[in-house]
Structures are given as C-alpha cells and as structure tokens.
C-alpha cells in the first residue's frame, strides 16, 4: 500500500478559497487585457524583404550579391558548418560543436542562388543557354577574371530601361556575365527568384526556405534592418519592427553580445550561448546551491509578501513563522 501523501498546508489556519472561480476570473481579466491591447496597439507586419524589392530599389546591390555568390566571396561560402567546410567554425579552446556536427545543410551559393535559377530560365529563354555553357566550361581563373572586371565596372554601369549596361570593354573582359546578370535581374524583378531557388527539389510547396533566406542574409537584409532600427547593436533582436516589444525575456542573452569579452570575439555566438546555458543551469539548480539558495533571505522581499501573516503570528505561533 502506497504511503498516504500529506502536505502541511492543513496544519496552518485556513481561509476559504475557490480555485475554479479564481481561474475563471483570471481568464476573464486576461481576455479583456489582450483584447484591449490588440485593439489599441495591433501588431507590426512589415513584409519580408524580397529579391524583387532589392532588384527594383537597388539593382546593383542584387548584382553585387550575385557576383559575390559566383566568386565564392559571399558570407555563406566562407561560413563553415553546417553549410560547408570552407570557413572557420566558432570554437572555445579548440572545442567546436559546429565542427563536430559537420556539414548538414550543404550549400553552394553560386549554384543554388545564381546558376540553378538561371538554368531554369534557360529552359524558357534558350538564348541564355550559350552564356551559361560558356560559364560552366570556363576555368576558375577565367571566371574570377570576368567577375573582377565586371565588379570594377559595376560602379560606372547604368540601367537603361531595366537593362544593365556596363562600360564598353574588350569583347572578352566580362565573358557571359552581362547576359547572365541581366537575365538574373529580370528573374528577380519578376518575383520568381526565391521560388526558383527553393523549388529546386520539385513542385512541393516551399515550406523550407533556408536557401532563399540565405540569399539576402548579408548586406541587403542588414541594410533593410538598419532602416527599420532592427540591427543587433541596437538591441533589435529583442524588439519587433516599429518599436513593438519582441522577445524581451531574452534580455540577458542579448546583453552579453553588447559587453566584453563577447562583443569583440570571433566566437561570440558560441560563448554567449554557453554562458547563458551555464547561468540557466545554476538558476535551475538553485535549491541545491548553498549561498545562491540563501539569497531570498538576503533580499528580504519575502517579508513584504508575507507581511500580513507575520503580523498575525507571534514567535511562538504556528509552524515556522
């Protein structure tokens, strides 16, 4: 026979209480509160930044992005795990969980962001097939030379009726890139670039948008976030667009990013996550940690919480009071 469980609440003087009524009242109060807050303050809904938007507002930025992808100079090509092995994974004293986990979401930016979408366009616009073949048959050195030439010419390039016109150069300086970039710009302007990137595996709805989200994740997203006052150094991650509160409960985690030694570390993410994890474990285990578990006694807030109880009891009174 199991031991009859007993708590010592019944040893104290009792007062009437109605759990169900309290729950219903709390539900009513909370319902009214969120109803009023929703009616007065609503919620922000700034549309996601799209390649179409970048292509229209800052076409050269999108083209620079594509050139970085093609030359492997984009942030993802040098990111390391889980996307590739070409970057340095974050580590602390040689311990790198990301390196141990390895490449789990392999991404080749040139192929995923630029060449695969253009190859899809080439099935409709066959004039693009030849430039793409020229690109694929070229040596790495040749491709790099084309990219370098057109990158240096991009500042002086103009857009005439939506078509990129680069300054005249010797016929082979840019290789197939002007044609490819104009097709890319057209694809982005049509609004189909993200679908062309994510829909690589077939007609299934693109519920996994990892690749298209990584397309603009560096400069374009950061520029847009800055305009919206959302960048990390402005504590943007714990607030929503339009100064709405975000995940303010992550204040401690976000605070660490702002202070030394984390602020200047190349492994800041790993250090912040581990530090937050250690602090969390300490708090979870508070009941077993001498000193930490005595802090409530030091703060004395409990005297305020139970002040009426202490007033009604004497030293010889009930239980532990």
């Amino acid at each position, binding site marked *: 026979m199991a031991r009859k469980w007993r708590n010592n609440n019944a040893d104290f003087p009792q007062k009437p209480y109605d759990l169900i009524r309290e729950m219903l009242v709390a539900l009513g109060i909370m319902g009214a509160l969120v109803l009023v807050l929703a009616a007065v303050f609503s919620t922000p809904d700034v549309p996601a930044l799209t390649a179409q938007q970048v292509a229209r507002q800052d076409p050269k930025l999108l083209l620079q992005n594509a050139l970085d992808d093609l030359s492997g100079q984009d942030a993802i090509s040098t990111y390391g795990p889980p996307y590739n092995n070409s970057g340095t994974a974050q580590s602390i004293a040689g311990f790198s969980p990301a390196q141990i986990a390895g490449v789990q*979401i392999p991404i080749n930016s040139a192929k995923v962001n630029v060449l695969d979408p253009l190859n899809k366009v080439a099935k409709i616009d066959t004039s693009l097939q030849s430039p793409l073949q020229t690109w694929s048959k070229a040596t790495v050195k040749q491709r790099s030379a084309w990219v370098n030439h057109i990158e240096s010419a991009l500042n002086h390039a103009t857009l005439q009726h939506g078509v990129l016109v680069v300054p005249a150069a010797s016929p082979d300086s840019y290789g197939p890139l002007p044609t490819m970039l104009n097709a890319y710009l057209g694809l982005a302007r049509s609004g189909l670039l993200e679908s062309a990137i994510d829909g690589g595996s077939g007609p299934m709805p693109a519920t996994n948008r990892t690749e298209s989200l990584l397309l603009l994740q560096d400069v374009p997203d950061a520029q847009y976030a800055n305009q919206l006052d959302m960048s990390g150094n402005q504590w943007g991650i714990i607030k929503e667009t339009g100064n709405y509160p975000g995940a303010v409960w992550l204040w401690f985690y976000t605070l660490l990013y702002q202070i030394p030694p984390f602020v200047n570390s190349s492994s800041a993410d790993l250090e912040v996550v581990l530090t937050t994890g250690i602090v969390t474990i300490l708090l979870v285990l508070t*009941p077993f940690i001498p000193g930490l578990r*005595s802090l409530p006694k030091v703060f004395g807030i409990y005297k305020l919480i139970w002040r009426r109880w202490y007033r009604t009891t004497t030293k010889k009174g009930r239980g532990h009071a």
Partner: protein
Amino acid sequence: MKKNMTRSLRLWVQNTLPMENLLPDSMPSYVDSYVYLFGILTVAALVWLIITGTVLAIFGPEWWHVSPVGHFFNSMHFWSVQAFFFFMVLHLWAQFMMAAWRGGRHWTWIGGWLLFLVSIVAGLTGYLSQNNFDSQWIGVQGKDAINSTGIGGFFNILNFGQMYGLHIFVLPMVIIVLLAIHLMLVRMHGVVEPLPNGKEEVDNGEKVAEQ
C-alpha cells in the same frame, strides 16, 4: 498473484493527490498577496494563446497578412505572448524571493524552469512563423547562435515548415504536459510556507519536510 497495474495506478493517484488537494476550497491564511496571482495569470494567458493560436492555425499562416480579422487575432496572440512571459517572469521572481523550492519542492522549481525554457523556444518558433521581415531578420540573425552549437542542421530556424510544425503542435503539447506536472506538484506539496521571520539559514527544505 500478479500485480494489478490499474489498481496500483488508482491507489497511487488516490494517495498522492487526493481530490481535496487537487481541487482545494481553502488555503492557508498566509496565502495573502498579489504575488500569488502571477501563476494563475500566466496559465490564463496560455489559455488565450491556445485559443487565438488555434483560430490562426485553422485559417493558415497567410491569413493574418490579408484579413483584418486575422490581423486582430494575430494581435491578440501577440499580446497574449507578452502577457504570458510578463506574468511567468514575475511568477518566477516571486517564487525565487519566497525560496519556494523548500519542503521538497525542488522538482516544482526545476519543472517551472523547464516550462520557461520550452516557452522561450515556443516563442522563438512563433516569431519565426510570422512570414514577414521580423521572422526573416530573426531567422538570419538567430541562425548563427544555433549553428554555433552544432544543432543548426537539425533545428534549422530558416526552415519555416519545421518551425511552424513545432510551434503549433509539438511545443504547445510539451508545455501542456509540463504544466500539468507542474500544477500537480504544486497541489501535491501545497503552497510553500512562509520563511522563518528571523535570521535562520534557508535550507533546501529537508528539515522542514520532516517536521
């Protein structure tokens, strides 16, 4: 004779959590402060989160971007989240200040922290499910922290389908189960008694439990 598992379970429930403890109609008179409302207000906010979240799930993730009614339900969901965390954090601080882990209540404290941590992940997956610039920015910014821990390949915060599924089903279920256990532990142990009003050392409750 074979042990009857059904009878054993029934007896365990009867002995561990008798109905008068599960659904009490009286409380010790020291339960006399507004801080005791923080827990139940957190639960109330969770109920509204589930109600508004269910409506949003029924109509699909695009609905609130195109419908004023959908936007209003999203707003209620958003402010329920803020209220949920606001009262949960107040509840947590209040329990800390009362050293509420005493009297063998350490599992209640640990379970409360688990609820907080799972709720943070639930909140994150919700922010990521918004399908707007907030979710886009949080995704591309947050991925670096997740990737640095080595779990980014499994818990890919740029994978909308994964985040949405976790947000509308898996994590709410975990929260509900953890909350049920948390409330059961609260009712089993009863409300923690006041700290000694002197200078005694606060222990982890073993001595108190024996008295």
